């Protein structure tokens, strides 16, 4: 079982520069053909400063930085037994290429169900941009299938 001391733990902040080729890769990888997400001219015509980071993209921050892997290692949760249970975003502004987003994530709760066969980790994340403006917040629930 995960040590409850991890409740309240704050992951190291993850700094994610929003970059054009990465967003174009993400568009390819998700089958996104809308030119707003691939072509800066189309993005600007739609009112964005440059390519917008799509709604789920910022979740990459804690992977790219290694913060998630560090957390799983610290909590001794094996990657092979981890599933994503829930994910929810609240959006305040759209981040675009040229922005740098900093994500701060903390462990909100750890709880078990089914007599401990399933152990849940709930995380809360907050993303701000280089101006300190709030970009998005999200809640993540992961489940460790023992």
């Amino acid at each position, binding site marked *: 079982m995960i040590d409850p001391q991890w409740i309240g733990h704050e992951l190291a902040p993850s700094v994610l520069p929003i970059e054009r080729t*990465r967003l174009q*890769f*993400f568009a*390819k*990888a*998700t*089958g*996104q053909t*809308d030119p*707003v*997400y691939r072509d800066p001219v189309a993005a600007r015509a*739609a*009112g*964005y*400063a440059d390519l*917008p980071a*799509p*709604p*789920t*993209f910022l*979740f*990459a*921050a804690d*992977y*790219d930085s290694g913060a998630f892997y560090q957390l799983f290692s610290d909590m001794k949760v*094996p*990657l*092979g*037994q*981890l*599933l*994503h*249970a*829930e*994910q*929810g*975003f*609240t*959006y*305040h*502004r*759209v981040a*675009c290429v040229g922005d740098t987003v900093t994500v701060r994530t903390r462990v909100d709760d750890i709880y078990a169900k089914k007599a401990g066969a399933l152990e849940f980790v709930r995380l809360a994340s907050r993303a701000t941009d280089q101006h300190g*403006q709030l970009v998005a917040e999200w*809640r993540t629930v992961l489940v460790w299938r023992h």
Partner: protein
Amino acid sequence: MDTTLAPGAVRVGDELPPLHLPPVDRSALALFAGASGDHNPIHLDIDFAQRAGLPDVFAQGMLGMAWLARLLTDWAPQSRLLDFKVRFLAITHVGDALSCSGRVLETFERDGMQCARLAVQATDQDGERKIAGEALVALAHRPAGAP
């Protein structure tokens, strides 16, 4: 594009144009791993998956959520997306072909803005629900502070 979201044009029960995905293949899992930063070998490496007691690799939940995001941004500009949440109900396996759909549950005013609450889901070729959730979309331009 925005005219379709004129507040009077959106009604409870309206269905979003569905999004049909091709069957998930291993290349798709590899590309999404790279693009999303999720390098968990459970999605990439069949040897790792089998050592973990599973028959094969399976899709990242966030790949499905990204597809549902496409459903939403095909319907409304992303600048109007206020909230988007899902529960991952079942694993998406290699070979599963998902269909994403959504419909308007209610319209209401929040902070002086007309909004729509949508139900969204992704089901596989057998009709099994893989992901279910909701989104909140503003039906007019957002106030200053959002592009």
